[in-house]
């Protein structure tokens, strides 16, 4: 008999302690970040979308070899005199296959890095063409994408980087 009542008491006590915990957290403020108005700034080492700076790139194609899923493609520039120049004719990153593993940034020999991960986690593409972002001679810093329907280069309509220009890493 006593065992029965002590069991009932234990069950009731366990239920009440559970309720007190939920009450405790009800009175604490919520920890929600309201996304569109309050955006989180990722930490400094965050691996967001790749960005590329054609000025400092010496087209050594180390990043092409380092990329596991073969996303990066580039072509060495040739000066008018037909001599190879340490510049890039064009450079393209296929964001559809990039798996944000930072191997390309680590293999890039230039100082500061010419391909690096920005802090942008809002990587959104309106179409599959937009996934392949290209850099050429006079393209803006963000680069353009080639739209097969209209056969011309366009600015990326999707979410532009959360930061206009991410912090450079030496």
């Amino acid at each position: 008999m006593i065992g029965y009542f002590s069991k009932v008491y234990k069950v009731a006590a366990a239920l009440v302690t559970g309720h007190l915990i939920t009450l405790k957290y009800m009175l604490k403020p919520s920890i929600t970040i309201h996304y569109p108005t309050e955006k989180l700034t990722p930490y400094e080492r965050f691996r967001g979308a790749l960005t590329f700076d054609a000025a400092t790139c010496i087209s050594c194609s180390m990043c092409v070899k380092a990329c596991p899923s073969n996303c990066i493609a580039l072509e060495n520039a040739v000066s008018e005199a037909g001599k190879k120049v340490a510049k890039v004719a064009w450079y393209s990153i296929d964001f559809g296959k990039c798996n944000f593993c930072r191997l390309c940034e680590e293999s890039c020999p230039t100082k500061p890095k010419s391909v690096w991960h920005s802090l942008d986690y809002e990587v959104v593409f309106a179409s599959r063409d937009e996934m392949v972002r290209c850099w050429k001679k006079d393209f803006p810093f963000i680069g353009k994408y080639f739209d097969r329907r209209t056969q011309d280069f366009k600015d990326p309509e999707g979410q532009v980087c959360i930061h206009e220009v991410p912090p450079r890493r030496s």
Partner: protein
Amino acid sequence: MTQDELLAKMQKKFPKAAKTAVQVKDYLTVSLPSKDDLIPVAAWLKKEGFDYLDMLTAVDYLGPVDMKGYIRQANFNVFLPEGAAPQAESAAVAGYAYRPVLELVWAFVSMKDKARIFVKLEVPRDAARAPSLSGLFKSADWQEREVFDLFGVVYDGHPNLTKILTPDFLQGHPLRKDYVHIKDRYDE
């Protein structure tokens, strides 16, 4: 008990089970001459305390992997209309003993004295047959179905040897080195 004691005890019971040339790094590896020794060896090991069949797999020693077995669908790149050059050309390494054989590997673990032993059996690639251990170890059931699905090794005495991982419409056994991918409706 150290590897040598285990090997000695095993060779006393099964003289034909020889220590393989290529040992799995710091574990004992034993190879069996023919597929009928497998069940007795497994039963003896189970009695000896190796009652945990940790892993069951196969390796195809035919040669370097055939690149046509991979699906390469890069997004359209305006500068490379015909698609990027494949990255890693798998080349044969000179002097490595490629041989047209499927090597089946079993790993038994004895939890009491924390020992592990690898048992190997070489099986011809075309008529790859081996006795099924699902009678002794229940976990062999799914692992053997996986090796059948990916390598095409038929395990005699298996309750229901059917495909487990690859989709039904996929022909051929993907993990064989000479596997060539046949275009199906999911390839653009």
